[in-house]
Structure formats: C-alpha cells, structure tokens
C-alpha cells in the first residue's frame, strides 16, 4: 500500500471512529436535556394517525392558587389498560354498580326507553335559580343545567352519543362496561362531551385526534 493510500485510509478510519464516538454523545445530550428546554406544547402539537383518538380533560380553577389539571389519554391505551385493573368495583374493564335501581329508578330500563324514543325534549325545567334541559338530539343525549343564583352561577353541558350510553349499559344488570363505552367513543368524530363553566372553575372533557390539550 502506498503512503498516499495509507494516509487516506488512516484519515478515513479516524473520521469513522470520531463519528462513532460522537454519535452517542449527541444522543446523550438530547437525553439529558432538562425539562425546561423541551419544546412547548404548541411546538410539539401533532395530529396522531387518524385512527388515534385522544380523550382530553382540562380543569382550570380561577382561585388564588390557579390550580390547573390537564390530562391527555389515548383512547386505545385506556381500552387496553382498564381491563388490567381489578380492584374494588372495577374488574375486566367493567364497574359494578350494586344498585341499578337508584332511588327506585331502573337505570337500564330508563336507558332502553331513551334509546328507542324519538328525538325530543324529555325534561325542561325553568326556575328562578336554575334551568334544566334533558333532550335527545341527533343520537346524542344532551343535559344542560344553568344555575342562575346570585351567589353561584354556573353552566353545565353534557353531550354523550347514544351509542356510548348503549355500550356503557351493555354488560349486565349491575355493571357498566367502561371498555365498551370507550370503544364506542373511539368511533365518534371530534366531540365535546362535558363543559362546565362556573365562576371559580371551568371543566372541559373532549375527544379529538390531537395529542395535546390546546
């Protein structure tokens, strides 16, 4: 081997070795980056593959401490994890409700009645302190509560697809099938399930295909 080739070979070997040594250092530096240096939520905002559905919960309290809770859970993860939790009333993704007859109301019969009924207003109550409205619209059960009291004002809106309610009550007489409900929920499009707006806090539960809260 000529001196020229030998020099070239030595240089190439040195560069390759240096690259091998430095690559893990780069990975290490990336790994060791402190939490504060990671990109913000908005920078990392990505839309997961369309089949991924994310359940979001956001609670913001407007008191002095300004408590905030944000939870983002992939529905598929919840579907897979729930059946592994067998504690107290929760078993195999189902939760046991000891008394399906709550205050002499047969919940399952009530759900069956709502499911088979046509769209319409079921309860409309208007008072000085509060307005309540329960209705079925476009295969969604809608509950709307507006508190108008002087001391406390709040607005609660719940919108649950009927398919989810059906799935929830599909298990047995005294059980709620949470996994079936989550599975039914995953087939829904982007939807807002719960919205609570009160003077001291706001709560929002919604479903979309994004992996960040907002």
């Amino acid at each position, binding site marked *: 081997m000529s001196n020229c080739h030998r020099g070239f070979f030595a240089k190439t070997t040195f560069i390759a*070795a240096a690259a*091998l*040594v430095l*690559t*893990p*250092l780069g*990975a*290490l530096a*990336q*790994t*060791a980056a*402190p*939490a504060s240096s*990671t990109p913000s*939520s908005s920078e*990392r905002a*990505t839309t*997961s593959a369309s089949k*991924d559905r*994310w359940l979001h919960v956001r609670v913001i309290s407007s008191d002095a*401490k*300004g*408590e*905030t*809770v*944000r*939870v*983002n*859970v*992939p529905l*598929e*993860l919840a579907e*897979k*994890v729930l059946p*592994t*939790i067998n*504690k107290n009333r929760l078993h195999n993704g189902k939760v046991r409700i000891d008394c399906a007859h709550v205050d002499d109301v047969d919940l399952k019969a009530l759900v069956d009645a709502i499911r088979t009924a046509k769209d319409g207003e079921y309860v409309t109550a208007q008072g000085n302190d509060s307005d309540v409205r329960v209705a079925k619209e476009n295969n969604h059960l809608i509950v709307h509560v507006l508190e108008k009291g002087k001391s406390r004002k709040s607005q609660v809106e719940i919108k649950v697809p009927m398919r989810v309610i059906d799935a929830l009550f599909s298990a047995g007489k005294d059980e709620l099938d949470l996994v079936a409900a989550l599975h039914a929920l995953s087939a829904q499009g982007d939807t807002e399930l719960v919205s609570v707006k009160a003077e001291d806090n706001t709560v929002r539960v919604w479903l979309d295909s994004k*992996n*960040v*809260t907002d």
Partner: protein
Amino acid sequence: MILLAKAALGLGGTLVIAGAYTMREGVIRVDVDEYRSGGSHVHVWVPAAAVPMAMHFVPREHMRHAVEHAREFMPTARAIVKELKKFPDADLVEVVDGEQHVQIRTHAGKLQIDVEAPSEKVHLLCPLATLDDVSRQLEFNAPGA
C-alpha cells in the same frame, strides 16, 4: 509495535462499539433535590442498556420478592408501557397548583416525570423500552411463570 497497535485498535474499537450500543439505548436519569437543611441531593445517570443486563445478576430470591410486591400492578404497568410506545410524544398529565407542578409525559421514546415544589424537585427520565424489558423480566421471574 504493530501487534501492540493492533491490540489497542481492537480494544478501542470494542470500547467504542460497546459505548455506542450502551448510549443508543438511552440513559435512565434520576434527579432528586430537597431544599432544606440536610436535604438529600441525588443525581443518578445509568445507561439504560445496563439495567436489563444487571437484572440477570440479581439473586432469584430477591427478584421473586420484588415481583410479589409488584404483582398487583404488573399487568397494568406492562399494558401502559406497551401502549405508550405506540403513540407520539404527549403531555399525559399536568397538574399545576400554586408553586407545585407535576408533569408526566412521553418524549423521544422516554417516560418523563417532573415534580417541582418549593421544597423539592424530582426529575425522572426512563426509556420506555427499558421499562418494557424490566417488566417483562419481572413477569418472567414471577412464581409460576
């Protein structure tokens, strides 16, 4: 002289490849700082690849003891880790309460848990693949497995 150079090159190459493999798997990082007199300050960096290997050297009896304690949570932990690996980076849980801040998220294939309070700061970073390996080994060592 040439023989010595060859031996050094072989040793160096082995070290480089071993280092590259170890670091490619990532690092488990644990930082605990307690801001009080006598408070502990723990900063541990462990190559993630070393953990599953090191578990092979843990006496079987100790491993079984650990598994018995964790048995109740093992299926849940395994399911969470297995599923988390499928999804992109996400802030899973974030709680802010005054000066306290708790965050659980996945970032670049790692589970990151940060707890910040006026009295203490805890940062935990662990590759999901390592958690999967560890939980698999614990399950393998479970009595009756």
